């Protein structure tokens, strides 16, 4: 995709803050299962231009939440935790899925109970 920027979990918040400072809108975050890694793409709208921050990480690795910068991100981060069993600091399970729902239903190569 156009306008992609790769980030690490160390500089994620710093990069997200730059968007907040210029009043760019947080559109949504998309999580994709790459097999051995997960990728979260944070989409921002800056005057109709869509800019994507890409963060790749191991599924058992904890990454920071961007909800301290964009409070509305808490909802989608909760959804990513539910659907992919990603570890996001301060975000728990239960946004969309009930406790007896299948675990991490959007993960590949993982048995869905």
């Amino acid at each position, binding site marked *: *995709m156009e306008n992609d920027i790769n980030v690490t979990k160390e500089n994620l918040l710093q990069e997200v803050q730059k968007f*907040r400072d210029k*009043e760019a*809108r*947080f*559109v*949504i975050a*998309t*999580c*994709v*299962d790459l097999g051995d890694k997960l990728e979260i*793409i944070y*989409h921002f*709208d800056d005057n*109709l231009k*869509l800019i*994507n921050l890409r963060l790749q990480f191991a599924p058992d690795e904890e990454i920071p939440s961007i909800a301290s910068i*964009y*409070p*509305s991100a808490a*909802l*989608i981060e909760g959804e990513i935790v539910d*659907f992919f069993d990603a570890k996001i600091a301060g975000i728990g399970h*239960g*946004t*969309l*899925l*009930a406790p007896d729902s299948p675990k991490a*239903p*959007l993960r590949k190569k993982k048995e869905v109970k």
Partner: protein
Amino acid sequence: MAKTVLTFGPQHVVFPEPIQFKLKVEDEFVVGAEPVIGYVHRGIEKAFELNELKKNIFLAERICGICQTPHSNAYVLGVERLMGIEAPPRAKYIRVIMNEMNRLHSHMLWFGLLGDAIGFESYFMQVWNYREKLMDIIEKIAGNRVTYSMNAIGGVRRDISDEQAKEIHNVMDFLEEAFKSIEDVLKDYTLIKRTKGIGVLTESEAKRDGAVGPTARASNVPYDMRMLGYDAYRDLEFKPVVVDSCDSYGRAVVRWKEMLQSINLIREALSKMPVGDIITKSNALPKGETVIRVEPPRGELFYYLKGNGTKNLERVKVRTPTFANIWPTITMLSKGCEFANVPVVVLSIDPCISCTER
């Protein structure tokens, strides 16, 4: 003053669908709110991966029962981009006409619900009666009044005949006249008292919280994905409707102006619609990833598609407008909103919960 937590929903007379807000109240005033969603989650993003490309068009339409045509529009635009094809010009105009008729019926539905919420029962029935004229012409074109199934990969499934175009013009003339009664209601003392200065969302809050659609545009934020010029929008006269009152009344005014704007867009699209094919056939399979954003009645709709060169997509992510407008609603409620005004404030964003949870 001690804080009390009151649960609002998931079943409430003002909600056609279930959602819960846990409201922290002090006396009569809300000082904090927390959304509780998940009552109608259907696992649609997973189903997108399991279904074949063409079946997904009908799946996309079933995410939302009101703004189904923008859902299939966004999906087919994404698949077309990944396949490297484009719909013929006539199909692009037909998509715009169907999208705008969809916006018209959705906004009329909302005005009826607003009347119902504030006790204007006869007005509620009157607006929905006008809406029937529109539903009838949609049924004549698409064969169905609710789920149109007009969009196809590479174009549209049905054409609009000259006779149908004349009928659309007649319905637009009728609605333009009928909307004067809606304008009268916007001047009504009770409606103004219940909505003006209620559910305030400032411009900076709208930007910070990611508000979209009429919710953002009533806060002086001109986000409207039609400005991206998808389908035939790039050939039409279009400027987003923006109001700076930042309240529930402003959201009603934006929708009323957008209904008139939709009538003009439909007329213009009908007059400029070229003659020609309505579909581009291709056997290509989608590969790569893309993002498509379109503008349904409630605001920006986001689709992320990832194809792997097979007839199944690797990943589809859908973010609906109400999902984006939940946090702005929390902001509106948490600023000391009177408990009695909570239904009107929540209704002012035109919530659609089933599509939010997918």
